[in-house]
């Protein structure tokens, strides 16, 4: 029983990262119709930035948790203005070429300066140790990540469903042209939404620094699963991306624990689930078929 709780807890923690990254991808895709293949690179930059801030300037984790998402969000907004916005009128192939190209550039810039070895990042002292839940105890830092991610997802959900900004974002995400015809300057919201999505990736990166190996390729490894999550949840579905994020975290953790005798299955289970979902619901669990303008 305590083994099961352990696996479930770890699954939810991995799921928290998937959810934060998939949430950013979903709002970006919804608003821009751009699949941001560079999302993993920004996650990596978040973690690396936190590491560099601490090791070279002594900036603590808590400050990095604010500085990196804001800084990367601004960088994302600049990139959107400079290059990403040109994609809207082009063949989707350019979407892939540009954002994947950005990934390679960002990864290699980091490699050039810091090499490929992993760098350690110490867990902030406030969050070291473990929390006793009676039958089992979990590392404090992981409990913090899970709580923080859930709070963040709830906050984003609240903004999206309860505020005028959220209403505009939902409308523009569902039917951009129609929303323009109702007097809303959809273009004005595109840059901040892109920056917000990138900021979330950066935030996930900072959160990952103390528990994952910080290296230039950490985003590339993670992003493949995140794309499976996004497809399962339904591309552009905000609720779907969060639900699928936690769901896939669980599936993966349980798979590794209980199917470890079948490594082929446990390593591919995420993609098997994805294929199954696509056969059953081609637009993803919470996705809708694209509506005309």
């Amino acid at each position, binding site marked *: 029983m305590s083994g099961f709780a352990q696996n479930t807890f770890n699954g939810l923690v991995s799921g928290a990262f998937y959810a934060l990254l998939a949430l950013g991808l979903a709002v970006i895709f919804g608003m821009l119709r751009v699949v941001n293949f560079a999302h993993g690179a920004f996650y990596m930059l978040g973690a690396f930035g936190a590491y560099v801030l601490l090791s070279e300037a002594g900036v603590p984790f808590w400050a990095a948790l604010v500085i990196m998402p804001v800084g990367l969000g601004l960088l994302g907004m600049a990139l959107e203005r400079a290059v990403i916005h040109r994609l809207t009128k082009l063949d989707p192939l350019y979407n892939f070429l540009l954002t994947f190209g950005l990934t390679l550039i960002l990864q290699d810039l980091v490699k050039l300066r810091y090499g490929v070895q992993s760098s350690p990042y110490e867990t902030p002292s406030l969050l070291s140790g473990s929390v006793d839940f009676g039958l089992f105890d979990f590392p404090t830092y992981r409990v913090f990540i899970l709580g923080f991610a859930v709070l963040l997802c709830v906050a984003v959900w609240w903004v999206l469903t309860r505020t005028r900004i959220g*209403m*505009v974002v*939902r*409308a523009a*995400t*569902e*039917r951009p*042209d*129609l*929303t*323009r*015809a*109702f*007097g*809303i*300057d*959809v273009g004005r919201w595109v840059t901040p939404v892109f920056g917000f999505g990138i900021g979330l990736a950066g935030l996930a990166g900072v959160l990952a620094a103390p528990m994952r190996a910080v290296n230039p390729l950490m985003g590339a490894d993670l992003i493949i699963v995140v794309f499976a999550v996004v497809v399962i949840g339904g591309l552009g579905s905000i609720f779907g991306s969060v639900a699928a994020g936690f769901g896939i975290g669980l599936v993966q953790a349980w798979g590794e624990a209980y199917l470890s005798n079948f490594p082929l299955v446990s390593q591919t289970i995420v993609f098997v689930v994805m294929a199954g979902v696509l056969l059953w619901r081609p637009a993803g669990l919470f996705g*809708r078929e694209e*509506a*005309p*303008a």
Partner: protein
Amino acid sequence: MLRIENLSAFYGEAQVLRDVSLEVSAGEVVTLVGRNGAGKSTLLRCVMGLHPGQRGTVELDGRDITRLAAHKRARLGLGWVPDDRGSYATLTVTENLTLPPTVGPDPWSLERVYEAFPALYTRRDSAATMLSGGEQQMLALARVLRMGARLLLCDEPTEGLSPLLVQQVGDLLREAKRHGVTVLLVEQNLHFATGVADRHYLLAEGRVAEAMDNSEVRSRERELLAYLGI
């Protein structure tokens, strides 16, 4: 109020509108009739600023708006009632109504909308796509009235509605007209068209084939119905 001059529109290589010129005066209700594929909806989309491939001029109150973005046209008082009713699945009924900013001098209040459409009030917190087809049509019309739009662009508002609802749409358009609202209406239902409109343009193969008034449409109803294939 609205002046369209030598408007041509394209879908890729295919030309769907050929040098269309027409005018709608303030306070008029004008319909566009024509077979499927005659270019009626494309014409409305051009006026709204939603069709990218076009040539010619669109003027609103003497101002050239041909190059103006759709959201700016809406803010000048254009109200869009799309053929698919334009309900947002991710917005509640109230949100669907309050999404557009108010743009005209005489916008309906939300209270007035709900008084006029009790069915929308009872479903105000549901997703708009959960409404029946007729209710969604009322929602689409109520939305542009709440905006206070001065020129309504309505794409087949009676399509698929029961006779009772068709009558209700007619009442609504007539009331809007009484308050000085101008309407450009795509309509296949000639009976309905002559009941609400002042004038009619017959579109055929992307051109304005004829301009008719109500008495002419009534006297040639048989011929027109046969032509429209209804």
